[in-house]
């Protein structure tokens, strides 16, 4: 059982602290994701643990022995590293590179035995690189080379594996395969894994512990559920987010929201009458433009309703699949009165939501500028036997402005480059 203890380490570059007061205990079978914004000290932390950058204070122990009193070879027998940049100067074959992973286990003049070749082969088969064995590593693609480097780390037969952004060169299938592999080694072989990961959702899907770094020190350390909160993500990354459950894995799923354009924060309110997903894009665009956006009346579980929830927009709702109640209609009219503008999307009308069309007519009566996005002709989306068609006609007569799609809305509302 190999444990890794990081005790209060501090690293400096000149007089600038690049890491301070880091305490961490890693047990076998632990998968720790190191997260943090650029420059928060993630790579520095991995470098000091991997015996490349000696910390000014504190100690790093493997099995209670300080890594700086152990020989480099002894450390390499227990700990392997997959570094971030893998340019190889000379044209070694992939197999040559993987066999170098056997170095910590070889004597000074010893050649690799057929047993070492066997271990290297197994490592390459695990990372799907055995067919590339004799190819020069410089001729491989970034992803292939990355997998060869991971095979080299596995050939070291380590107890602790450090990965520095292992997925940066990989496409999605290779990312998943790699993380699955590392997770399997972690659970089946009791390998302790420390990985710097940029993708919050990959981290929460595979790691069991998250280390969140901010300003060169630990901001949060704990289980994925404890650490992955909108509050933590806002204070570390400075981005608003919504946490949902990944429907397949049930891991916390982070949906980051683009920051509002604070400089263009507008004091005007826009009320959007939508439903059935016809307003989703528009709602987000308007929010990003800095408007106070409200929406109504929507059914709970309608996709536009969910968008409002996610974007934290004011919305009115009725239970799923039910008709709009009078109470909701009144509230809708109240919202419309407070708005500077109303936009009606090309929502299909049935008897359940026909009141929304009446609400739009009320808006024109209040003298509020009303835009109608008429992407789909009303004939095709009228399920009220002509009632919606005649109400639409009335809407036109009351001076509502009809546009073909949201890009035709005046540029003063939505600038063209942002449609």
């Amino acid at each position, binding site marked *: 059982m190999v444990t890794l203890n990081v005790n209060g380490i501090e690293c400096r570059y000149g007089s600038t602290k690049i890491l301070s007061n880091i305490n961490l205990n890693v047990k076998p079978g632990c998968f720790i994701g190191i997260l943090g914004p650029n420059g928060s000290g993630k790579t520095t932390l991995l470098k000091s643990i991997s015996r490349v950058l000696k910390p000014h204070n504190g100690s790093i122990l493997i099995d209670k022995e300080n890594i700086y009193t152990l020989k480099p070879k002894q450390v390499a027998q227990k700990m392997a590293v997959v570094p971030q940049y893998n*340019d190889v100067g*000379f044209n070694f074959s992939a197999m040559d590179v993987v066999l170098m992973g056997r170095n910590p286990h070889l004597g000074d003049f010893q050649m*690799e035995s057929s047993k070492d070749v066997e271990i290297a082969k197994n490592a390459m088969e695990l990372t799907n690189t055995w067919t590339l064995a004799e190819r020069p590593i410089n001729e491989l693609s970034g992803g292939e080379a990355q997998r060869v480097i991971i095979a080299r780390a596995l050939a070291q037969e380590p107890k602790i594996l450090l990965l520095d952004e292992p997925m940066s060169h990989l496409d999605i299938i290779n990312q998943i395969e790699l993380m699955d592999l590392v997770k399997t080694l972690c659970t089946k072989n009791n390998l302790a894994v420390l990985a710097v990961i940029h993708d919050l959702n990959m981290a929460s899907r595979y790691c069991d512990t998250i280390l969140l770094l901010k300003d060169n020190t630990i901001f949060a350390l704990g289980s994925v559920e404890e650490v992955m909160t909108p509050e933590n993500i806002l204070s570390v990354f400075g981005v608003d987010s919504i946490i949902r459950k990944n429907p397949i894995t049930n891991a916390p799923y982070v949906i980051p929201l683009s920051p509002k354009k604070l400089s263009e924060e507008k004091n005007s309110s826009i009320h959007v009458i939508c439903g059935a997903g016809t307003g989703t894009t528009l709602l987000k665009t308007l929010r990003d433009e800095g408007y106070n956006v409200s929406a109504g009346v929507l059914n709970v579980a309608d996709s536009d309703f969910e968008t409002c929830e996610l974007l934290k927009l004011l919305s009115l709702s009725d239970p799923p699949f039910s008709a709009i109640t009078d109470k909701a209609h009144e509230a809708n009219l109240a919202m419309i009165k407070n708005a500077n503008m109303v936009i009606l999307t090309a929502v299909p009308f049935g008897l359940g939501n026909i009141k929304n069309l009446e609400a739009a007519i009320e808006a024109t009566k209040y003298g509020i500028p009303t835009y109608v996005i008429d992407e789909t002709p009303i004939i095709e989306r009228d399920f009220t036997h002509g009632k919606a068609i005649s109400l639409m006609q009335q809407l036109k007569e009351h001076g509502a402005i009809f546009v073909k799609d949201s890009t035709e809305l005046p540029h003063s509302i939505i600038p063209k480059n942002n449609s």
Partner: protein
Amino acid sequence: MNNNNNNNTVDTCNNSQRTEKVYSQRAKRWKLVIAGLIASLIVTIIVSLNIGYTFISYSDILTFFGTRIPYVNNLIDTTAFTREQLANQAIILDIRLPRILAALIIGAALSASGTLFQGVFRNPMADPYVLGVSAGASVGVGIAILWGTGINFFGFPIVPIAAFLTALATIFFVYSISKVGTRVPEMSLLLTGIAVSIFLAAIFQAMQFITTDHKLSQLVNWQIGSITNVGWANWWAVLPFIVAGIALSYFYARDLNMISLGEDTAQHLGVNTSRTKKILLVLGSIMTAAAVSISGLIGFVGLMIPHITRLIVGPDHRLLIPTSALLGAIYLIICDNIARSIGGATEVPVGIITALAGGPFLVFLLRRSRQKYRM
């Protein structure tokens, strides 16, 4: 369709077994390559003894070696030698052999140190010249010549000793000022090496201005790079350093493989990177100084031979160090053969031959490698 699939599976399987076999039996293959090169070197030496102003037959050459081998020499009746045969034996012993053996160790030393420097700096452009080691050695030689040659120092000629000292001083100076914290970044080391090299070359040129005519010609002759006047005494003086240099660097060959992947990677794989780099730089400097002190500046061997050898045998230093040393030896012996045959009575310094052959070849190699490798 099914057939195709089956064939593919069989092929992959065969390939896979082949790869395993190739890597399990590498040591055997490498020994064969080295044995082949040693045989080629011996043939080159014998052929080179045949080349020269006086005709010496192969039977005389073989007889010469026969008289030096225990037991075999009992079979040869030296009293029956003709006057001409005796004269030929003297030419081989005093003129041709020392010169060929000098070319051998100088070529081996320059190539081996070039291989070390290229590996440590992960840069096929690195060589003793770029790092200022050769310039450092030449300043030592210059000082020794100005001081007056022929002064013995513990029985050794002063020139090689002075070259060792200044070459070592130079590499440590370059190494320590390019050091950042506990690490030595390649780029800073190369730039420092070039700067120091230019500075030391200027000092050497200044020496030529302040000296007398007699010593000036000595300096100039030495600088051109020639192995005409090496002689047995100088040869024996530097031989131990070159042999020890190659043998010790072979001890670090596997570490050097990992260092050539990058400092951090080597560290991760269990190499004591900074110590090993230091040792390899010292070994490279010792070999360079040993060669430079007896031959002057013979350019391009340390740059070109490791490069060519790597193209032929691959980048593994366990094979690359011995093969580049052997190829360097063969190459310099051949260059020296050309140097002493093409000019007729006047000899061309071998440094000119290596530069004339090396320059264009390097340009050709660079253009080719730019397409083929990302170095």
